């Protein structure tokens, strides 16, 4: 079934028999998944299939929801992140996240990034400045905003806001970045920029991206996981899944019959 045999890649995250519940509703059902270092793994599926829930379980951001419960394990470098002795704040620093809608804080561009840096104890002005520049360059935003770092981030365009959020995430140097449909609120030009940015980032970070867009998965991802009604139906190299889907439901999704 699982034909991903990435012998040459280090495994960063392993999801084992993992289920997630909102109250009585089981949103993710016994998922098993491996995520490899410096690869882009796309989680694809129709809306409501549990892909976002699975993603949001990986940095435990769903813990904020009152009725959320889980079963099974998510191993990060072999350690279950739902173990009692895990410090979720450290975990979230190592597994960053970019959301569906851009989420700039209502403060300056500079302060948006400095906020995250302060969380990891970087407050030295010179170092903050360097990191702000470094992360904005990495997020391909520096040339557009370098003269207006004091401008309120909410006044940037949607695409720029999303790149700022990426800069903010990478400024604290996580290992993994989770993208939750990062381009669904953006126009095609902005989407294209974000996609090429994500591809570049894969050289330094391990990336998991949730998308319902087949084109997006095929353009940027190395591996694709297809989910349907809370279950992982199949997972493989993206090119394999697209060329030769094993399950009928996957075929139907890829051909646009469900979505």
């Amino acid at each position, binding site marked *: 079934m699982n034909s991903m045999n990435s012998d040459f890649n280090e495994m960063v995250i392993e999801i084992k028999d993992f289920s997630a519940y909102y109250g009585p509703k089981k949103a993710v059902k016994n998922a098993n998944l491996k995520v490899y270092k410096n690869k882009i793994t796309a989680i694809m599926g129709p809306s409501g299939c549990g892909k976002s829930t699975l993603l949001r379980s990986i*940095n435990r*951001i769903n813990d*904020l929801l009152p009725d959320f419960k889980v079963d099974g394990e998510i191993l990060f470098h072999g350690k279950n992140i739902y173990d009692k002795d895990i410090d979720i*704040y*450290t*975990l*979230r*620093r190592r597994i*960053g*996240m970019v*959301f569906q*809608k851009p*989420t700039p*804080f*209502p*403060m300056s561009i500079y302060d948006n990034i400095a*906020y*995250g840096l*302060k*969380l*990891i104890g970087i407050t030295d002005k010179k170092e903050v400045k360097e990191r702000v520049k470094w992360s904005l360059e990495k997020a391909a935003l520096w040339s557009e905003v370098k003269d207006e770092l004091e401008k309120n981030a909410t006044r940037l365009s949607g695409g720029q806001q999303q790149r700022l*959020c990426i800069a*903010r*995430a990478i400024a*604290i140097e996580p290992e993994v970045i989770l993208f939750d449909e990062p381009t669904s609120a953006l126009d095609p030009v902005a989407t294209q920029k974000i996609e090429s940015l994500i591809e570049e980032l894969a050289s330094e970070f391990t990336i998991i991206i949730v998308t319902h867009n087949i084109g997006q998965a095929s353009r940027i991802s190395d591996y694709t996981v297809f989910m349907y009604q809370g279950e992982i139906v199949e997972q493989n190299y993206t090119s394999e899944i697209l060329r030769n889907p094993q399950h009928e439901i996957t075929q139907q999704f890829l051909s646009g019959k469900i979505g």
Partner: protein
Amino acid sequence: MNELTMKSKASKKNTRANKILRALSYLVSALIVLLFLMALIPGLKYWNIQFFTQFPKDGMTAGGIFPAILGSFLITAVALAISIPLGILLGVVLSEYNLEYIKFVVTILSGIPSVVYGLFGLGLFCITMGMRTSILAGGLTLSLMVLPVISSSVYETMRSIPRELREAAYALGARKSEVIFEMLLPAVKKTIITVSLVSAGRAIGETAPLILTAAVFYATNLPRNLLSPAMTLPTHLYFLAAAYGQKARWMAEGTASILILFVIIVYTIAFAFRREEK
């Protein structure tokens, strides 16, 4: 074509309704401005150095209102010094810890008539806690009055910040306190300034609670400390009107004009901040 003409008829109707509404709102604004001017202008002619710096003399027929200005300032300062930090804290707690019941109580508190606050302050601060009639008792009473105003406003603004922003902060590894104090509170800073000014405007004009807890009719000395009673602008105005009648009318007009001026200044700054916010 027919449809188009129908539409244009409807929109004509709309413009007429708009014009009427607009005219009405101008009328109401004009009435309010008139009211302000009627309180402000008659007193202007009494403004001079003596009026601002002297005590009232000769049975309120001469002198100035310096002690009332000072008293109002001190009591408002005490009230704000207590209610701003507490109000922010209460608003934050209400919004971030889902305390719907307490929010309900706070909403009710903001509807209680000020004289009831006055009686409460008289009982609790002046008598039970032994502060007697004093600046401190008056300031505390007023702080209770404006506390719900500040906390409700902070609460509403915090609530209007989308959940996604909180999640984004948590996703960077922030703790709850770091989300609240370093992301949410800076985001509502302008609201806090605005509502503090609005509260100052309310506190400075409040009369009934101060008659019961802080104000004296006439003071020969300036307040020595926060446990001294004081004269204030609104209570002075009340006493003048109630007890002195025509011969002190000039002083009442002068007092009213200063009070109105303070209120205009405070609200104008608050309004400017609110505009900038938008």
